[in-house]
Structure formats: C-alpha cells, structure tokens
C-alpha cells in the first residue's frame, strides 16, 4: 500500500513530467493559452495515461519484445479515441479549442514514456497509480502555465477579470509567450532542485 502511495505522489513534484522529466512539451506549449484548455487537456491526458498504463502492465508478458512499441501505440490510440469521442460528444467547445492536440495525445511522450519506462516492468496496480500521479502532475503543470499565461495575456483567470485597469500583455497569449513562461518556470524549478541538493 505504501508503495502505491509513493508511485502516485512521485509524479506530482519529484518526477513532474513537465518540469523535471521535461516530457510532453508540445501539447504544453500549444494548449496552455487558457486555464480551461489546460484542465481539459490535462484530464484527457490523465485518462489516457491511466488506461494505457494499466492495460500495458496487464498484457506486458504477452507482448513480444520486438513489436512492443506498435502494441503500446494501439493500446494508447484506443484510449485516445475514447477520450476524443467523449470530448466531441460532451464538450464540443473544448474540443474545438484543443483541436488537433487531442488526437496527438497518441504520440505524447509522457504516455509512451510511462508505458516504456514503467508499465512494462511493473504490476498493474503500481502502473495504474503511476499513470494517475503522472497525469495529475501534467495537469497541475498545465494549470500553472496556462494560469500565468491567461492572466498576463488577457488579464483573466477562467474568463473572470481579476484586476481592473490591467492592460493585457498580448505576447503571453502567443506561442512566444508559452516558450517564455515555460523557460522561466523550468529555470525556477531547477533553482529549487539545486537549492535542495
């Protein structure tokens, strides 16, 4: 039980997929314009991670070593299709906002990375909690980045204006703003890591 808790919590800070493992930056850069998009993307990716990690761990003894990556992709793609169709059905606005980045979760390096680095060597329960923790860490990172970008870029958080008379810094709503915010946050987390070490 203690092991499972550890597998769950490590993804949130100690091995945060975005800031420490530096995986999955492509969707992070692209969808972090607003907090709503960030949360939607995070939930979709978490669902895929959970499902694919658990299933990959379950069938890990049956998959021949040489074709393991195609097998993982098939499993991952199944869950991505489920997530995409659900999103289209229940939240078409979010689906339009995220666009191509939902189907692209198939090649998200966090998902494939966890399947290859963790789920194929560990039990189903541990893989499940690992996927949950990683997904949560990814979601939190997305919320942090998109929160900063939405506030600076449009003066709002989740569509609510915070400070009266604040003149939005448009550049943070653009791709260059995503690179700036992620770069500075990576530097900040490295600073914290080095302080601790």
């Amino acid at each position, binding site marked *: 039980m203690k092991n499972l808790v550890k597998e769950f919590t490590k993804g949130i800070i100690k091995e945060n997929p975005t800031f420490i493992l530096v995986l999955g930056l492509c969707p992070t850069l692209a969808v972090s314009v607003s907090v709503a998009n960030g949360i939607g993307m995070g939930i979709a990716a978490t669902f895929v991670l959970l499902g694919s990690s658990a299933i990959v761990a379950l069938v890990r003894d049956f998959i021949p070593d040489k074709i393991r990556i195609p097998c993982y992709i098939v499993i991952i793609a199944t869950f991505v299709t489920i997530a995409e169709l659900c999103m289209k059905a229940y939240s078409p606005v979010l689906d339009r906002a995220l666009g191509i980045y939902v189907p692209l979760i198939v090649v998200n390096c966090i998902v494939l990375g966890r399947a290859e680095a963790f789920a194929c060597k560990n039990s189903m329960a541990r893989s499940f909690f690992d996927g949950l923790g990683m997904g949560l860490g990814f979601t939190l990172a997305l919320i942090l980045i998109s929160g900063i970008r939405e506030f600076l870029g449009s003066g709002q958080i989740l569509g609510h204006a915070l400070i009266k008379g604040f*003149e*939005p810094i*448009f*550049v*943070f709503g*653009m791709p*260059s703003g995503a690179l*700036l915010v992620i770069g500075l946050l990576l530097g900040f987390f490295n600073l914290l890591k080095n302080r601790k070490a």
Partner: protein
Amino acid sequence: MKNNLIVSGSPHIRKEGSVPRIMWTVAASLIPAEIAGVVIFGLDALWVTLAAIIAAVLSEWAFGIFTKRKITVLDGSAVITGILLAFNLPSGVPLWLPVVGAVFSIFIGKQVFGGLGQNIFNPALVGRVFLMASWPKYMTTFPRPFSYDAVTSATPLAILKEGKILEHISYLDLFLGKRGGCIGEVCILALLIGAAVLLIRGYITWHIPVTYIFTTAVFTYIFGAGQFFHGDWLFHILSGGLILGAFFMATDYVATPLTAKGQIIFGVGCGLLTAVIRLWGGYPEGASYAILMMNAATPFIDRYTKNRIYGSK
C-alpha cells in the same frame, strides 16, 4: 641593477580603453539624438527616456543583488540599453511602458543569458519587440512633430504601407526629423553626429553600418516601385529606424560577428531583411526584426568567417 625585462603573456599593448569607457562614450554619443527628440516631440520624450534608463539601471542592480553576482551597473551598459529602448518608443506612451520594456530587456534580454558579453540578442531590441507584440496600440501611435500635444500622425513608412500617397515631405524634413516616428530615430543629423564620434574614436567600424545602409538602398531602389530600378532609395534610407539601427544597434559588440568579413555578411543580411520586411512584410518598418534575426545568425557567421591564424594554412 633592477631587472627591466618583464615576461608576460599577451595582450602586450595596453590602452586606456575599457568596457565602461566605451559604454559611457556610446551613451554620450546618443545625447544629440535625445536633444533632437526632445526638441521635436517635447518634454514627453525626455520623461520616457529617463523612465527607461532608471528602470534598466534598477533592474540591473536588483538582479546583481538577487543572484549575489558582481553588480555591473557602473559599466554603463544598462544605461545604453535604457536609452536605446526609449529611442525605439513613440514619445506619447504611458510611462509604465518604457519601465516594463526596460525590465524585460535587462532580465530576459541580457541577464538570464549571463549578463553583458553573453547575451545573444541586442537587449534593447528584445525589449522593443516584446512591447511591440504586447501593446501594439501604444507602440504605433506617433505624436505629430512640433505639435507638443495629443495630435498624432502616422510615420511616412506606415503611410506608404497602407498604399496611400505620401503628402509632400522633403528629404530635408526627413533628414532633420520633421516627421512622425520614435523618439530617437527621427533626427538623422543628430544620429550622424553621434555616429561620427564613435567612428573617429574607433569604437565602431564602418563595415556593418555602411553595408547595411547600402544594401537597403540598393534593394529598395531595384524593387521599391512598380517597375524595376525606380524605387525611392533615399526616402528609405532617411525614414524608419534604419540609421539608428545601423550605427547604434547593429554594431552592438556582443551580438554581432567578430571579423570584418563576418560583419559585412551581417550588414548585408540586415539590409536585405529590412528591405524585404518594408516592401513585402506585414510591418511598415523592419529594422529591429532584421537586426534580431541577424543576431541569431551571428554564431554561424562567426564559425565560417574565422580569420586564418598567423602561420597556419
């Protein structure tokens, strides 16, 4: 007898020139253009410049304190960044704009790379482009020269870009700065006085400015009008930020090539990009983007234009 034979490593020729000395001279050479800006646009121009300088110096100092590094305020580079940033702003902007721009220039444009000597882009231009992308409304509202109030006018280049016919503006007006534009870019005469000081002192060489301006002129002469070889090249030299950029920003020591050959490539590249942006790009003026793009190319230029080491093949 005292031994007068001193054995030491290079450099053997010692001069009084030092980084602070050069930086403060450059800052002084910008004073004529600042005076011209204040004469043309009123005291607003002075406040904008002071705000940018103070913010740049304070952020340089704060970064030194925060990171416990050597405090490099006195080398004058932060002052130059502040002045050059203000020179790239219209005089009518609210005063927080130069402050935000200067803080961004120093932190993101310079200090995160490791400070003076490490920055890959010209810090003042980084600040300008940041402001341009963030608050285009303020950055493209230019006060009318000699009106000293809220009357605005477009820059000659912007009028040209919109396809309107330019009301008659003489080359002398452009040369003396009687046009809408940023604080430091309008008065060509004042800029040339400052540039002459730097050239005579040997702090900058002719390679980048001359090739830069010449390339822009040739390119706009060929392609600037409906038919080939009818472009108004003199207008293109005298308008926009070309002179300011060519003499004061494309000659930044840190972010430009080291050798003469490299500097000529750099100047030609800047000239081509400026002309292309002006004639076919989305913005009316492209000097700042051209210089930044060539800054990014500088490491490659340096790699392929290394001087032959004496004695080697």
